[in-house]
C-alpha cells in the first residue's frame, strides 16, 4: 500500500504557483477529461492559444473573476509510489494566515520564486513561518527559468541565498532542495529538462516521490488527549468504560503505566480497543479506545501520558503566537485556548517580543501584535493545562487562541520558542 505525503505550496502572487500545481496535476494524469475540457473551453474564451493550467486550481468564482487565489485549496494526486495531499496556499494579503492553515500538518513545503526576481521579502517570511511550524523539509522551486534563458548563474545565486536563510532558521542543508523549473513549459517538474544540463538533481516530482516522509512521532513519549468517554450501558456491555482519542505521540501497549493529567492520577492501560479487535500495540496517528485498570474520574479534555517523561502542568504558558485576526492583540486580552480536547479561558499577560522575519531578529516589548505578525507572549489560564514544547510534541505543544465573543480563531499557538532566534538564554 502506498504511503501518504502531505505538502504545502507557498509563493507570491504571479510567481506561477497555480500554473505549477496545475502542471503537477496534469502531468501526473490527475486531471480528468471533463475538468480538462472545462479548462480548454475557458482558455479559448479568454483568447489563449495554450490551455491555462492555472484554471485547474482556481476554485472560487470571485477568484476566477479577479484572477487571484484567495483561500487554501486542497488537491489530491497520486503516483504509483505515493499519494499526495497538497495544500495550495495563496500568497497575498492574508499570507501568514493562509500559510499557517496550509502548512500546519505539512511534511514538506514547496516555496516558489520567480527566477527574474529571486528571493524576496515574501519568500523570507514564508520560510520563517514554515520553520516556526516545524515543516521538516523545504523545496525552493525557482520558476520561470525559461525567462532567464535557463541561466545557471542566476539559479545558483538564488539557491545560495535561500540556503543561507533556511540555515539561519534551523534547517539542515539536506532538508532543503532548490530546483530550476518552468511551470509553464514543464522543465524539471516531472521530466528532466534538456535546457538545464547543468542541473543534476531530481525533478520536482522525483523528489516528492522519494524524499523520506517524516512519520508521526512514534518515538516520542506517549500522549493521548481524551476526546470522548465511551460508556454503552447496554446489556452486552454493562460495565464498559473506554477513553476514546487519537494518539498524539508515541506508542501504547496493554500493561503500560500511564498518568492522567492534569489530576496526576496514576494507572495502567489494560486494553487498547478498536471495533476491529484489541491491539497489542498502537502508535501516533491511530484512533483507539483505552481501557484502564483503575476507576478514575476522567473526562473529555484530560490527557493520558507516559508515566515517565510527562508534560508540564501549568497555568502559565510561555508561547509563540502567529496572529491571524484583523483586530490586533494587546496585553490583558481575554481569550479562549483550545489545547487537545480541552478549552480553557486565558488572559494574555505581557507581550514579550515581536519577531522580525526579514532580519530574523526580535523586537522587545511590542505594543501589540497585528495581523500576520509573530510574537512571544505569556498566557495565564483559568486552570492548569498539561503542555509540551512544540518542538518535541507538535500535537500537544499546539493550541488555538479563540475569541470568546464570536468564536473566531485568532491565533495559532505554539508552546515554547520554536525558532533558534526566539530562544532566550
Amino acid at each position: 500500500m502506498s504511503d501518504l505525503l502531505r505538502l504545502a505550496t507557498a509563493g507570491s502572487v504571479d510567481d506561477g504557483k497555480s500554473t505549477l500545481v496545475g502542471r503537477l496535476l496534469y502531468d501526473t494524469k490527475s486531471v480528468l477529461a471533463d475538468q480538462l475540457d472545462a479548462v480548454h473551453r475557458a482558455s479559448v474564451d479568454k483568447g489563449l492559444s495554450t490551455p491555462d493550467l492555472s484554471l485547474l486550481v482556481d476554485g472560487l468564482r470571485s477568484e476566477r473573476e479577479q484572477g487571484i487565489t484567495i483561500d487554501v485549496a486542497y488537491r489530491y494526486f497520486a503516483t504509483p509510489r505515493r499519494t499526495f495531499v497538497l495544500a495550495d496556499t495563496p500568497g497575498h494579503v492574508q499570507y501568514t494566515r493562509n500559510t499557517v492553515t496550509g502548512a500546519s500538518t505539512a511534511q514538506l513545503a514547496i516555496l516558489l520564486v520567480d527566477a527574474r526576481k529571486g528571493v524576496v521579502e515574501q519568500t523570507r517570511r514564508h520560510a520563517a513561518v514554515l520553520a516556526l511550524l516545524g515543516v521538516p523539509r523545504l523545496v525552493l522551486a525557482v520558476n520561470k527559468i525559461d525567462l532567464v534563458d535557463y541561466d545557471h548563474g542566476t539559479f545558483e545565486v538564488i539557491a545560495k541565498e535561500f540556503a543561507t536563510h533556511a540555515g539561519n532558521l534551523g534547517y539542515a542543508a539536506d532538508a532543503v532542495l532548490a530546483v530550476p523549473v518552468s511551470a509553464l513549459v514543464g522543465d524539471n517538474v516531472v521530466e528532466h529538462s534538456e535546457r538545464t544540463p547543468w542541473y543534476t538533481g531530481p525533478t520536482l516530482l522525483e523528489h516528492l516521490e522519494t524524499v523520506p516522509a517524516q512519520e508521526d512521532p512514534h518515538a516520542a513519549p506517549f500522549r493521548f488527549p481524551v476526546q470522548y468517554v465511551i460508556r454503552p450501558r447496554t446489556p452486552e456491555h454493562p460495565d464498559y468504560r473506554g477513553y476514546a482519542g487519537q494518539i498524539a505521540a508515541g506508542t501504547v501497549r496493554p500493561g503500560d503505566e500511564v498518568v492522567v493529567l492534569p489530576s496526576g492520577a496514576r494507572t495502567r492501560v489494560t486494553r487498547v480497543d478498536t471495533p476491529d479487535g484489541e491491539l497489542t500495540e498502537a502508535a501516533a496517528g491511530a484512533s483507539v479506545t483505552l481501557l484502564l485498570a483503575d476507576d478514575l474520574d476522567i473526562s473529555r479534555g484530560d490527557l493520558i501520558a507516559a508515566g515517565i517523561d510527562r508534560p508540564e502542568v501549568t497555568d502559565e504558558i510561555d508561547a509563540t503566537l502567529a496572529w491571524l485576526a484583523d483586530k490586533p492583540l494587546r496585553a490583558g486580552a481575554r481569550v479562549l485556548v483550545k489545547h487537545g480536547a480541552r478549552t480553557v479561558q486565558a488572559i494574555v499577560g505581557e507581550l514579550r517580543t515581536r519577531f522580525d522575519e526579514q532580519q530574523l531578529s526580535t523586537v522587545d516589548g511590542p505594543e501589540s501584535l497585528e495581523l500576520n505578525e509573530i510574537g512571544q507572549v505569556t498566557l495565564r489560564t483559568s486552570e492548569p493545562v498539561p503542555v509540551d514544547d512544540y518542538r518535541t510534541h507538535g500535537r500537544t505543544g499546539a493550541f488555538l487562541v479563540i475569541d470568546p465573543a464570536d468564536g473566531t480563531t485568532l491565533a495559532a499557538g505554539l508552546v515554547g520558542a520554536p525558532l533558534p532566534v526566539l530562544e532566550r538564554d
Partner: protein
Amino acid sequence: MTATIDAPVRTAPRLDSLGRLESEAIHIMREVAGEFDRPVILFSGGKDSTLLLHLAVKAFWPAPVPFPLLHVDTGHNFAEVIDFRDRMVERYGLRLVVANVQDWIDDGRLTERPDGTRNPLQTVPLLDTITEHRFDAVFGGGRRDEERARAKERIFSLRNAFGQWEPRRQRPELWNLYNGRHRPGEHVRVFPLSNWTELDVWRYIARENIELPSIYYAHERDVYSRDGMWLTEGPWGGPRDGETVLRKTVRYRTVGDGSCTGAVESEASTLDEVIAEVGASRLTERGATRADDRLSEAAMEDRKREGYF
C-alpha cells in the same frame, strides 16, 4: 531541523493511507460528539453517507451512534435506495428524521420547477429542518476532490443563520484542532471525508466490506438519453417525445434526484470491478452523472452559498 526525532524505540504498525483517512474521520466525529449539543448526520443512502455512518459506528463502538440521521427526500429517489436507507436505520437502531420536499411543495413554501428537477429545492427543507430541530452540527459526506469550490471548504464549515457559507470568512484550520464555536442560530457543517478521493472511498468500502444500494453495481435497466446522460423512468417522469428507451447494462456513480442523476454504461458488477473502473475513469463523478452541477461553471459554489451543502 530541530523538530526531527530520529531514533525509533519501538516499531508499531504504521497506518497506510486508508488507515490514516479512517483515523482522521473518527477523530473528527468524536470531536463533534464532544463539543456539540445536537449533531445530525445527513443520510441519503448514497455511498458517501453510508461510509459516514459506517465510520460513526466505528467511532463510538461498542456504544450506539450518538446522532440521529436526517434525509431530505426529494420524492425522486430510487426505490432501492430508500429501501436500503430504511434497512440501515433498522440495523443500527437509529432515529431517522425525514424532510419530504413534497410537503413543502404541498403547503406552498416551495414551487415545483418547470424542468421538474428537485435537487435545487432541497435547500429550504434542509435549513427549515435544521432550525426546527435546533441541529448545531450537520455531518455531510462532501469530499474536496469532487469539485473546485469544494477544494476550499474547511472540515468544520461555519454557516450563518441563513445556512450560508461565506468563503471569505472561513476560519483558519490548524493542525487537528477544530474550532466548532458558533453563535445561537448558526450551525457548523462537518465534512469528515474531506481528504478522501473517490478511489479511496471505493477501496475502503471493499476493505471494510460495506453494503451499498444495488444500483451502484452494473444491472440492466431501461434508459433514455438526455443532455448526454442515461436517465431512467420513475416518479420524476420519463422520456419525452423523441427520446427513445433502450435496455442497457448500467450502474450509478452517485445517487440523487432521479430526474437529473444519470447512469453510466458499465459492466462492473462487483466491488473489484468498480474499483478497476473508477481507477481507469477519465470523468469526475459529478461531471459524469449530475446534470445539476453542469448548469454553470460556478454551480456548486452557488449552491453552497445558498446553504445546500
